[in-house]
């Protein structure tokens, strides 16, 4: 059906396994890496320098879409930065591209929610940037909590229960959805359960990235087991009844 080209931070150990597990038969994944060890603004800016070269590597495998599967690197400079990166990838390759942050905003809009709470693996500094990116995109962030991890390899070692616990901790009655940010954080296994228990959609950055990539490829109805967003990929937000 299609080939997804995925750009991952070199120290990310989570996003490739989580993509592979969720992809339907006929969609394959091809990865290139961008050098990154620490989730800090300086490291992230250096990482993006490599973006065009690595995107061209993926384009040489004739992928249908290129996804920058990294959350912080795609919102770091605020609103519009993700679009700027998409522009760079598309200009370098002639392929359609998206980023995790772009996908996250699209997913939130698709679900037709505007008030969310944010849970992330980040420290306060990066979490504040995440929050302002969401708010600049028209999303109200009622509360934000982060685990305070800066070393990306350490994020990859966190178990999915840390995402589950933080989501429950940050949730509020007036939140319409829960956002879980960082593609190196294991979130995919807890989305379904959280949605059932809390009765509201849970959007993780990995889940939203997979959703956006599959929508761009087209022809895939849905992937079960990873929350409302992926269960019904093509459905419009309002009509998709929350089960």
């Amino acid at each position, binding site marked *: 059906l299609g080939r997804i080209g995925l750009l991952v931070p*070199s120290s990310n*150990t989570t996003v490739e396994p989580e993509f592979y597990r969720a992809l339907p038969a006929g969609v394959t994944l091809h990865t290139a890496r961008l050098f990154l060890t620490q989730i800090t603004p300086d490291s992230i800016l250096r990482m993006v320098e490599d973006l065009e070269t690595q995107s061209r590597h993926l384009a040489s495998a004739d992928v249908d879409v290129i996804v920058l599967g990294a959350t912080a690197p795609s919102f770091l400079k605020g609103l519009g930065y993700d679009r700027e990166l998409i522009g760079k990838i598309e200009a370098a390759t002639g392929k359609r591209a998206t980023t995790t942050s772009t996908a996250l905003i699209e997913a939130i809009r698709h679900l037709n929610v505007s008030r969310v709470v944010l849970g992330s693996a980040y420290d306060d500094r990066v979490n504040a940037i995440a929050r302002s990116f969401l708010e600049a995109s028209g999303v109200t962030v009622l509360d934000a909590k982060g685990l305070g991890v800066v070393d990306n390899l350490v994020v990859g*070692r966190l178990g999915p229960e840390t995402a589950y616990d933080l989501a429950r901790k940050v949730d509020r009655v007036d939140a319409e959805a829960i956002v879980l940010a960082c593609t190196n954080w294991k979130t995919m296994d807890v989305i379904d359960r959280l949605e059932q228990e809390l009765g509201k959609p849970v959007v993780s950055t990995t889940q939203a990235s997979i959703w956006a990539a599959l929508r761009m490829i087209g022809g895939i109805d849905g992937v079960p087991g990873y929350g409302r967003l992926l269960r019904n990929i093509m459905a419009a937000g309002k009509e998709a009844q929350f089960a």
Partner: protein
Amino acid sequence: MYGWRGRIGLLVPSINTTMETEFWRIAPQGVSVHSARIAGGRHGTPEELRGMENASKQAAKEIAMVEPDVVVYGCTSGSFFEGPAWNRKICEQLSEITGAPTVTTAGAMAASLIAGGYKKVDVVTPYVDVTNERLKQFLKAHGIEVVKLGTFDMLDMFDHAKIQPEEIYSKVKEITTPKAEAVFVACTQLRALEVLDLLERDLGKPVYSAVQASAWQAYEAMGVDPKIMDCGGLLRRLSEPGASKKAVKKLRRSA
């Protein structure tokens, strides 16, 4: 952490679309595959194949950070082209960068055939003449004679992935000779993995492939029994009683 049982750092030529897919398809629970791409063009010219040696160092730096248990340099011609010493140099360079043992496809090809005691083999490749000649020399240096070589004769490496598994099946069946003790299908871009079992059954002799041999050596290096029962005898042997499962890896911080 994903890959708690074993993490494979897979370096593929940037144009390769087959190897990541096949490695993920056979990865058992607890094993993860993380890829980086080796810069290069889509034509397997001598210059491009030689260039991969240097370009692979950058890809190794990118993959080192996931702390792999084994690194796989996933290109057959890119590891045999300049002979066994060149192949060893690639292994040493990449292990130096990543701190993990390195498996190259050409090294795995030789090791798998030697492990079976096969000295006369037939080979199927997608390569042009100059590359096929180098492959024969590489095997000869390991004491293995190529009895017959069949080729799809395509220079464009991206297009190698368009060859269908059933075409590979037919080509192997068409060229193999009674004299050959085994058949090897070279090139990690060829989708041979899914027809190996069928070929071994129908020909009654071992048929190995580039991706399969690379995986075999990678799992052996990790000391992981993957229990892959439908991709040929070579991988099945990893699960036989008495197969050497030398778990050499140290327990990680995260275990």
